[in-house]
């Protein structure tokens, strides 16, 4: 749909802009700057700083350019004596009580107040009274410091809290001259997105407590890079000085982050200097780890792998990849395993998923244009926080609708017009029921057979019909599902549902497969799968595989991670290469995995930090990781972007390690930098043809959606009984105390013990009240934690938050049903 435009004149220049654009933005579009403090293009129009005063023909008084829409034929003057005097006046008022401590102010050099004063100020003040004294250093939170004297009460930060994050946590107190930003009763301002107020503060009032007084902004080496924490891949600027990380700020990319980043992305980067980093390669000899050169470590790896392959065949070697690594690293690893070792024992995840979608792969911006977003098994607030902001924007500010299907309560429910909760473990039935209801609504065939919806999932048939009805009546539907939170055949059922919904002649639909790990989608694309080559080429597509990879490419289905651990335990898998993954803690059933890994004859761990897994390895190779590495990642919206390095690494980049290993297997690997790898993968990975340094420089580029293999109607299996136990639902936490966010993290104030959240029905039966200590146990694992009675899930299950590595919550998952016992202590 063409957007209506209007044409106006600003200082004699003509601008044509979409209707609804304000005068500040209209001027910007033709290169005319109108100075601002309070206006922020991503927020609502405030008009309170009065800096953007302009003259508009036929209007008696000066107008604020930020609050008025550009209209047809409007004549705006930005440089008349009246405007100049008006702005000088506003600046004089603004500076009346603003301290001139610019020489020690963190904002110095990037301060709109400095810049506007330089450009529009009178150069002198007539203020002859002592400036109002106020608090110079108030800790708003452990990571944000407020200098009250510098605050110009522009309301940007409080508006952010009200309109963008919607927590109403940072507010304006008092009135008039005594206006004061603050929180309820001086509690810390510690929301998930609090740090953004530092970026948007137009003066040095809100400062990063860690960066405060550490460096001058102009002394920083800034690199435009990506956040590596979750699969949103927000754009950030990494500021370093003398090869030390000083701060991270947001770098707006409308297609991804809309200009915001979460606090984990901003403050959670201490791992680049962690004590726990692996700095040197090591080789275990006689049970002892010895420092080795990279060549020695690689040689050892190559020769051991070769001899195992020779003795036991390529099927005796496996690879566990990383959803956190770059496409380049993952591409090279799968090449090493397939073309060097000759195996398809390649995987990176504990859940079942296949590449491709039967519908469009939507980008984040589609959430704004879709009239309905459907969340399935997702908790964006904890898993993909920037998606949380985008959904809130769509619902509250753009009037879109949201519906939610999940097994646990999330903060998104508040924004949903309908929210259905299925029993933990019954996702196949619930999704099958939804597919069936959608098919009925559209009078289509092909849905799975489900006839026990209420009994097996807890959702009534007519509730599900209502849910499906919202999907079939919408013009554009964006389905966001988290494969990592679904079990069994569920992803296949989601795809079945999507292909049925796609048949709706009245509407269009697309999906975002939202697995939360940084580059989980890239890992799929790069073929870190036992049954697919890069670009979603199925093993059954023999001719295509041979065409791209040559005659010797293995086409026998490899083992999944789960199967690999099983084979390791039984002694059939002799060697395992683990790249930036810690399955002992991060995969369900950690203890069994630990036992299995101990049995592996040759374990290589290529990682950034020491973990429970690296501790067992025979060869350890350092991976430099985010901050130091360079390459591309693919976010859940299918956007491929460029992750630049911000710091110079002491050790070798990972692609070099891979080049050495490949050479060891006599595979040509003459890479000059990571971009030569990108160039190769662009040739080898269908969908990545257009990905090259130049094309992804600025906003990245969405790779075309891969078609999914059109399967048969999936089978729906009813969940098994957990007897007198409970089904465990592990809830992810944004600020989990793990290897990345360590105990001395600046974000440590967000850490909490895990909680066992019980449905009130179950709690009453067990006589448990909020605050009681309970024991959650499975097999020989147990966890003594606090109970909370809250209907986060349906009866029969318990939600435990994955609050940190030390709790080993996933180790409680010991059977197919994830059954645990809960008892009062």
């Amino acid at each position, binding site marked *: 749909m063409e957007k209506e435009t209007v044409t106006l004149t600003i200082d004699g220049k003509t601008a044509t802009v979409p209707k609804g654009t304000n005068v500040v933005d209209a001027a910007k579009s033709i290169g005319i700057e109108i100075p601002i403090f309070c206006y922020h293009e991503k927020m609502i129009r405030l008009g309170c700083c009065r800096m953007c005063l302009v003259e508009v023909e036929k209007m008696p008084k000066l107008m604020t350019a930020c609050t008025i829409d550009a209209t047809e034929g409007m004549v705006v003057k930005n440089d008349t004596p009246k405007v100049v005097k008006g702005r000088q006046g506003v600046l004089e008022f603004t500076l009346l009580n603003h301290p001139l401590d610019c020489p020690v102010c963190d904002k110095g050099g990037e301060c709109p107040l400095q810049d506007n004063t330089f450009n529009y100020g009178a150069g002198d003040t007539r203020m002859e009274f002592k400036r109002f004294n106020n608090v110079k250093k108030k800790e708003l939170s452990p990571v944000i410091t407020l200098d009250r004297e510098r605050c110009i009460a522009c309301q940007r930060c409080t508006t952010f809290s009200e309109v963008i994050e919607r927590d*109403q*946590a940072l507010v304006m107190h008092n009135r008039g001259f005594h206006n004061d930003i603050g929180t309820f009763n001086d509690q810390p301002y510690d929301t998930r997105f609090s740090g953004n107020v530092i970026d948007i503060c137009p003066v040095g009032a809100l400062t990063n407590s860690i960066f405060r007084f550490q460096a001058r902004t102009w002394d920083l080496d800034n690199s435009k890079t990506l956040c590596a924490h979750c699969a949103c891949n927000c754009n950030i600027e990494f500021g370093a000085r003398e090869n030390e990380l000083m701060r991270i700020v947001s770098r707006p990319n409308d297609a991804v982050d809309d200009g915001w980043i979460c606090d984990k992305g901003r403050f959670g980067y201490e791992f680049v200097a962690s004590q726990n980093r692996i700095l040197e390669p090591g080789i275990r000899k006689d049970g002892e780890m010895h420092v080795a050169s990279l060549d020695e470590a690689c040689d050892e790896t190559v020769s051991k792998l070769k001899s195992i392959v020779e003795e036991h065949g390529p099927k005796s070697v496996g690879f566990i990849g990383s959803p956190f690594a770059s496409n380049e690293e993952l591409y090279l690893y799968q090449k090493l395993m397939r073309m060097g070792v000759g195996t398809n024992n390649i995987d990176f995840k504990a859940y079942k998923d296949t590449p491709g979608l039967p519908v469009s792969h939507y980008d984040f911006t589609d959430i704004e244009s879709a009239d309905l977003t459907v969340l399935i098994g997702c908790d964006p607030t904890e898993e993909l926080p920037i998606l949380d902001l985008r959904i809130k924007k769509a619902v509250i500010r753009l009037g879109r609708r949201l519906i939610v299907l999940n097994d646990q309560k999330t903060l998104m429910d508040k924004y949903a017009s309908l929210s259905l909760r299925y029993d933990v473990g019954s996702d196949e039935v619930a999704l099958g029921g939804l597919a069936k209801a959608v098919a009925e609504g559209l009078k289509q065939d092909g849905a799975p057979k489900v006839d026990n919806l209420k009994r097996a999932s807890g959702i009534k048939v007519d509730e599900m019909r209502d849910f499906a009805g919202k999907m079939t009546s919408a013009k554009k539907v964006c389905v966001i599902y988290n494969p990592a939170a679904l079990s069994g055949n569920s992803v296949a059922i989601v795809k079945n549902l999507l292909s049925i919904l796609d048949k709706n002649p009245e509407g269009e639909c697309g999906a975002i497969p939202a697995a939360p790990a940084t580059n989980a989608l890239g890992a799929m694309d790069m073929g870190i799968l036992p049954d697919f080559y890069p670009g979603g080429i199925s093993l059954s597509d023999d001719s295509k595989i041979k065409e791209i990879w040559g005659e010797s490419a293995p086409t026998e289905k490899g083992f999944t991670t789960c199967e690999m651990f099983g084979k390791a335990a039984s002694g059939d898998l002799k060697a395992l290469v683990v790249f930036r993954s810690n399955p002992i803690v991060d995969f369900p059933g950690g203890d069994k995995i630990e036992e299995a890994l101990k049995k592996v004859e040759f374990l290589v761990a290529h990682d950034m930090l020491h973990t429970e897994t690296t501790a067992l390895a025979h060869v350890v190779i350092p991976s430099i990781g985010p901050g130091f590495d360079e390459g591309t990642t693919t976010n859940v919206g299918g956007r491929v972007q460029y992750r630049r390095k911000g710091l110079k690494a002491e050790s070798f980049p990972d692609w070099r390690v891979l080049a050495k290993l490949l050479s060891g297997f006599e595979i040509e690997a003459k890479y000059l930098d990571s971009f030569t790898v990108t160039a190769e993968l662009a040739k080898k990975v269908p969908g990545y043809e257009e990905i090259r340094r130049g094309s992804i420089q600025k906003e990245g580029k969405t790779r075309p959606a891969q078609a999914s293999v059109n399967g048969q109607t999936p089978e729906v299996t009813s969940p098994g009984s957990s007897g007198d136990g409970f089904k465990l639902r592990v809830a992810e936490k944004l600020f989990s105390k793990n290897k990345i966010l360590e105990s001395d993290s600046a974000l440590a104030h967000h850490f909490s013990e895990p909680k066992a959240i019980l449905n009130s029905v179950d709690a009453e039966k067990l006589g448990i009240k909020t605050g009681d200590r309970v024991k959650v146990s499975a097999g020989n694992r147990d966890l003594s934690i606090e109970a909370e009675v809250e209907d986060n899930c349906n009866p029969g299950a318990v939600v435990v938050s994955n609050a940190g590595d030390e709790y080993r919550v996933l180790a409680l998952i010991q059977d197919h049903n994830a059954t645990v016992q809960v008892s009062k202590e």
Partner: protein
Amino acid sequence: MFAFTKESEKKIETILAKYPEERKMSALLPFLTLTQRQEGWVSPEAMVEIGKRLDVSPAYVQSVCSFYTMYFQYPAGKYIIRFCHNISCYLNGSDSLLDYLSEKLNVEVGGTTEDKKFTLIKEECLAECSAAPVMRVNDDYHVNLTKESIDKIIDSLK
């Protein structure tokens, strides 16, 4: 701990009935007023409770509460004396009367007497200008003030 009394709960029903259900935030000022009438001030605990009832954060409640000068965020006296010092009252000698009252009560303007009986506040215009000087003691207006009438009023307050 803060809780609305039974009587207040009844008033809450009347208040909420005034506004459309989806606009119940309109009841925020009436709730704050009700709280202050019940407790004498608006405590943080009360703000939490009000926030819960109206689906806004406690910070939001505090933000609104602090904008309006009639709310006390600390326990105030039994009698709140708002003494106008604005133009019409000023022209009619309010300044000396306010000094007189302050001395009489032995309390600074803006303060509360030690026995917590009186809080004396310098008030902006109270809209009884044709009967200046004016003060308001709790809900009652007292006009055409003189030293004598002030004595009488104060002495009558138990």
